[in-house]
C-alpha cells in the first residue's frame, strides 16, 4: 500500500465538498433538469392489481392520441429477465415490462412516449388492460401457508414462495446451549421503510443513428445499469453509455436497472428521439424499492458471568414480488447477526420470501438495521436479566482486532471497546442509567458495518474499482474515476486521497466521474459502503505508479543514490533527506514526457479484494446512546440527545463524516419512531410526505459525537466506512431508552405512541 511519508496535509482536513458551490447556486444538473432537442416525454403504466394474469392489453386509443409517438408493452421487448445476481441466473426474476403476469401493484405494464408530459400522462389513461385476478399474499405467514399461490410459478425449481435460503454454521450451537446458564429467545418484526431520497428517479436517453444509446440516469451503479440494459435490450454492452449526473440521494434505492431506464432506452431506439422519464413522488412511494420488513428470531446463550457462548438466529425477509437485492440482504443479515460480539457458536438460517408487494431492495445498512435491532435489543434484555450493566455486558463480549469468524469474517481493526468506553464517559451513562427523572430514559445500541463486499454475485469480469490519473506539465492532474458520488461526497474524498499522496493541492486536480465509456468502467458502484475503501485503494494504486514514474525523473536529474526516498509534497518532487534536491511536480512531468518521446503520462489503478474472507475487507464499529422523554399521557417520544462514539479508521474528511452521522441519525429516528408504509391489499396508501412522515429540522435531537481513530490496514491511508453503519444503532438505542423510561420493550417497529400507551395500560 502506498503511503506518503509527508505529514497528512489534506487527509484529515474538513475540506468543503468540491460540488457544494455548484449545488448551492442551483447550477448542478440532475437528470430531471436535462432536456434535449426533439425530446419526447415518457410515462409508465404500472399494474393496478396485486397479482393477475394479463389477458389483453389494448394500446390503440393511446396510440391514436395526437402527440403520442410510441407505446410499448411486454411483447414489444426481447422478454429477457434481469437482476443483480448474475452469477445465479435463476435469481434474475424480473422483466422490464410484464408479459403475461403482474405480481404487485406497481409492476411495469406499458410505457408511452409523447411530445409533452401532459399528453403522455393522458395516453397512459387510455391504455386498456384486462387482468384475470389471481389470489395474492401480503405477509410472510400467508405466503408460506399451505396452498398459498406460487408467485413465481414459472420457476420450476421453486416449490413454495421462498426464493432463496442462506445458512451459516459455526461451531456446535446445540452442544453450547446444553451448557448454558442463561438462555434468552426473542422474536421481532421490523418493518419496511422508504429511502425517501429527495430526488425522484429520472432517466434521459439519447439514441445515435447506429442505435447506440447515451443514458443519463439517477443511479448509484452506472456499470450495473450498463450491463443490465445491454442484456435486456439484447445489444452489446459497448452500445450503452451510462453517465451519472448529479444525484439527489440514493441510500440503496438507486442501485438496480429500473423499468423506466429500460423503457426510455427502448422508446428512444424505436422513435430515434431522446426520451425522458421523471417519476412523481407518488410513483416513488408506490413502486420505489424499500427496506426489507423481516421477522427475526434469535436465541442466545450466556454463562452466568455474562460470557456469550452461542446464538441461533433465523430471519424471514419479506421480499415483495421480486428478488431485487433481497439475496444480498438475506446473506448479510446472517453475517451481521454474528457481528459485534464473539459468538463461538453461531447458526443462521435466512429465507427470502416472495409476497405480492413492492419489492424490497438495498437500503442503508442492508440487512444490518434489522439484524442488529434484534441483537442489540436482546443484549439489553439479557443485561437486565443477568443483572449486568449493558455496557459491561458488551465490553465482556466485544469483538476486537484480530477476531475471526471462521469462513465468514476477519476483523483487521476494531475500535469497539474504545467506543463503548467513550460513549459511557460522554453521557455519564452509569449514573443516568441507575437513576433518572420519571418518564426519562437512556438507552444504548451499537453497530458494525462492512466497508464494501468481497463477494461477486454480479459476476463482473473486471476489477471492483478502477481509476485513471493523467498528469500534466502545468502541475495539474486529472482523476477519472468510476466512483459514483450520489451526495455522500466521494468526489471530494477521492480527490483528497489523491492530493495527499501526490503532494498536490486538491484544487489542482480535475475530476471526471462515472461515465462508463469515458472513465475506466470497472466499478460496481456506490453501495455497501464500498467507495472510500475500494475506490480509495484504486486511487492509491494509481498514485503509487505515478510516483514511481516521477521519482525516476528526480533521481536521474539529481543523480540520487539508490537509497534515497523521493517525497511528494507542496507540489514538489524531491529527495526526502535533501529537500533542496527536487523539482516541481509539473517539471517532473515535463521530464517524463520528454524522456518518453512525447507520450502522455497516464496511469491506471485498480482494486479487487482477494482472500479476505466472505464478507468485507474491513469493518466499522460504534456505540450510540439515546436520551428520551416519553409523555405518559400521549405516549409521544421526544429524543433529546443522541451521543455516538464510532470507529471509521482514519478520518479523511471530518466534516463529511459528521454529515454522514447526522443524516444517519435522522434516518434512524424515522425508522424507530415515525416512518412506515400503510398497506391495504397490496396497495401503498401513504404516498405523500404528508402521510409518510420523515423527520424535519424541528424533530432532531441534540447530537454529540467522538471519532475513535484506528488504522485499518486494508483501507486507503487507514480509512474505512462511515456511511451506512451509523444508520443502525439509533433504533435500538431509542428503543432501549423508551424501555428505560416506560418499561415497554418494542418488538414490533416502529415505536408509536399507541403501542406505548397500550403497554403502559393507558389505552
Amino acid at each position, binding site marked *: 500500500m502506498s503511503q506518503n511519508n509527508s505529514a497528512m496535509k489534506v487527509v484529515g482536513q474538513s475540506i468543503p*465538498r468540491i460540488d457544494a458551490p455548484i449545488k448551492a447556486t442551483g447550477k448542478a444538473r440532475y437528470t430531471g433538469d436535462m432536456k434535449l432537442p426533439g425530446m419526447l416525454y415518457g410515462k409508465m403504466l404500472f399494474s393496478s392489481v396485486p397479482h393477475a394474469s394479463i389477458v389483453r392489453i389494448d394500446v390503440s386509443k393511446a396510440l391514436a392520441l395526437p402527440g403520442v409517438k410510441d407505446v410499448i408493452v411486454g411483447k414489444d421487448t426481447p422478454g429477457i429477465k434481469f437482476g443483480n445476481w448474475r452469477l445465479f441466473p435463476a435469481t434474475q426474476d424480473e422483466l422490464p415490462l410484464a408479459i403475461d403476469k403482474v405480481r404487485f401493484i406497481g409492476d411495469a405494464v406499458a410505457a408511452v412516449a409523447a411530445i409533452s408530459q401532459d399528453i403522455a400522462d393522458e395516453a397512459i389513461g387510455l391504455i386498456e388492460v384486462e387482468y384475470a385476478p389471481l389470489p395474492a399474499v401480503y405477509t410472510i405467514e400467508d405466503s408460506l401457508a399451505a396452498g398459498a399461490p406460487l408467485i413465481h410459478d414459472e420457476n420450476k425449481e421453486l416449490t413454495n414462495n421462498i426464493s432463496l435460503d442462506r445458512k451459516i454454521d459455526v461451531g456446535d450451537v446445540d452442544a453450547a446451549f446444553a451448557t448454558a446458564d442463561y438462555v434468552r429467545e426473542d422474536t421481532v418484526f421490523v418493518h419496511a421503510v422508504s429511502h*425517501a431520497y*429527495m430526488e425522484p428517479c429520472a432517466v434521459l436517453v439519447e439514441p445515435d443513428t447506429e442505435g447506440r444509446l447515451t443514458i443519463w440516469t439517477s443511479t448509484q451503479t452506472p456499470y450495473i445499469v450498463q450491463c443490465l440494459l445491454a442484456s435486456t435490450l439484447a445489444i452489446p454492452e459497448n452500445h450503452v453509455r451510462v453517465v451519472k449526473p448529479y444525484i439527489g440521494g440514493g441510500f440503496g434505492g438507486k442501485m438496480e436497472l429500473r423499468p423506466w431506464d429500460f423503457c426510455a432506452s427502448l422508446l428512444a431506439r424505436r422513435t430515434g428521439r431522446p426520451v425522458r422519464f421523471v417519476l412523481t413522488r407518488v410513483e416513488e412511494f408506490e413502486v420505489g424499492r424499500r427496506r426489507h420488513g423481516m421477522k427475526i428470531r434469535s436465541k442466545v446463550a450466556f454463562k452466568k458471568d455474562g460470557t456469550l457462548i452461542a446464538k441461533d438466529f433465523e430471519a424471514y425477509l419479506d421480499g415483495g414480488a421480486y428478488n431485487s437485492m433481497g439475496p444480498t440482504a438475506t446473506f448479510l443479515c446472517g453475517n451481521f447477526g454474528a457481528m459485534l460480539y464473539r459468538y463461538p457458536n453461531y447458526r443462521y438460517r435466512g429465507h427470502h420470501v416472495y409476497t405480492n408487494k413492492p419489492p424490497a431492495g438495498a437500503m442503508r445498512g442492508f440487512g444490518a438495521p434489522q439484524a442488529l435491532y434484534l441483537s442489540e435489543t436482546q443484549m439489553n434484555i439479557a443485561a437486565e436479566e443477568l443483572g449486568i450493566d449493558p455496557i459491561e455486558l458488551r465490553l465482556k463480549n466485544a469483538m476486537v482486532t484480530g477476531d475471526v469468524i471462521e469462513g465468514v469474517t476477519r476483523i483487521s481493526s476494531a475500535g469497539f471497546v474504545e467506543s463503548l468506553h467513550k460513549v459511557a464517559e460522554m453521557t455519564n451513562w452509569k449514573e443516568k442509567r441507575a437513576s433518572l427523572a420519571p418518564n426519562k430514559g437512556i438507552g444504548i445500541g451499537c453497530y458494525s458495518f462492512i466497508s464494501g463486499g468481497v463477494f461477486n454475485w454480479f459476476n463482473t469480469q473486471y476489477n471492483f474499482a478502477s481509476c485513471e490519473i493523467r498528469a500534466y506539465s502545468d502541475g495539474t492532474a486529472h482523476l477519472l474515476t468510476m466512483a459514483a458520488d*450520489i451526495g455522500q461526497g466521494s468526489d471530494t474524498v477521492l480527490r483528497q486521497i489523491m492530493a495527499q499522496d501526490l503532494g498536490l493541492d486538491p484544487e489542482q486536480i480535475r475530476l471526471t466521474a462515472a461515465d462508463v465509456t469515458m472513465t475506466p468502467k470497472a466499478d460496481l458502484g456506490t453501495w455497501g459502503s464500498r467507495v472510500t475503501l475500494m475506490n480509495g485503494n484504486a486511487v492509491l494504486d494509481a498514485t503509487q505508479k505515478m510516483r514511481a514514474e516521477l521519482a525516476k525523473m528526480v533521481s536521474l536529474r539529481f543523480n540520487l543514490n539508490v537509497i534515497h526516498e523521493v517525497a511528494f509534497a507542496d507540489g514538489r518532487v524531491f529527495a526526502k533527506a535533501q529537500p533542496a534536491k527536487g523539482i516541481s511536480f509539473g517539471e517532473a512531468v515535463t521530464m517524463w514526457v520528454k524522456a518518453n518521446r512525447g507520450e502522455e503520462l497516464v496511469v491506471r489503478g485498480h482494486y479487487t479484494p482477494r482472500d479476505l474472507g466472505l464478507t468485507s475487507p474491513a469493518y466499522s464499529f460504534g456505540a450510540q446512546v439515546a436520551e428520551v422523554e416519553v409523555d405518559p399521557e400521549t405516549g409521544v417520544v421526544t429524543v433529546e440527545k443522541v451521543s455516538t462514539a464510532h470507529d471509521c479508521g482514519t478520518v479523511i474528511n471530518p466534516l463529511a463524516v459528521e454529515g454522514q*452521522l447526522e*443524516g444517519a441519525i435522522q434516518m434512524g429516528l424515522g425508522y424507530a419512531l415515525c416512518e412506515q408504509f400503510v398497506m391495504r391489499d397490496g396497495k401503498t396508501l401513504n404516498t405523500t*410526505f404528508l402521510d409518510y412522515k420523515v423527520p424535519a*429540522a424541528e424533530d432532531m435531537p441534540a*447530537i454529540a459525537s467522538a471519532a475513535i481513530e484506528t488504522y485499518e490496514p486494508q483501507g486507503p491511508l487507514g480509512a474505512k466506512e462511515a456511511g451506512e453503519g451509523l444508520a443502525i444503532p439509533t433504533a435500538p438505542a431509542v428503543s432501549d431508552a423508551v424501555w428505560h423510561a416506560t418499561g415497554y420493550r418494542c418488538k414490533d417497529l416502529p415505536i408509536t405512541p399507541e403501542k406505548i400507551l397500550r403497554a403502559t395500560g393507558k389505552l
Partner: protein
Amino acid sequence: MDKVCITLNVNGDRYELAVDPWRTLVEVLRDDLNLTGTKIGCQTGDCGACTVLIDGKSVASCMMLAVAADNKNIATIEGLSTGQDELHPIQEAFVEQGAIQCGYCTPGMVLSTKYLLDQNPDPTETEIRQALSGNLCRCTGYHRIVKAVEAVAVKMRADGKGE
C-alpha cells in the same frame, strides 16, 4: 382551455408568456424558462424543494399556478448570487459549514433561509428549525444546515447586509 398571457418578473428579468391555466409555477419556471435550479421533490407542497420567493415571501411553487404569479416579482436560486463566481453569504455559509450533501434540497433551503433572515436577522436555534421544517432534507440531519444559518446570520448582521 385557452392559454393565458402572463408576465413573470424573475430575478429582475421580465418574461411574457402564454401558459395553460392549470400549469404550476414550478413547471413554468423549469420547463419554459429553463430555470431548473428550483427542484421538484413531491408536487404536493410537502417537501420545500420548489421554494421560491414571491414579492419577498417564501412560497412552494408547486402549489401555485403560474397565472397566479402574473406580474409578481419572483426570486429563484439562480438570482441569489450576483456574479459568476460570487456566492451569496447564505450560499457561502452552506458550502463552508458542510450543509450540502446531495444538494437536491439546497436551493429550497437557501431560499427559506433568505426569507427567515429577511424577517428575523437574529433567529434562535428553535426559530431556525421551525422556519426550515417545511423543507425536507434526507441527507444531512439538518444540523449543518442550522449551523450554516446561525453562522450567516452573525455574518450578515456584522456586515450590515441584513436587508
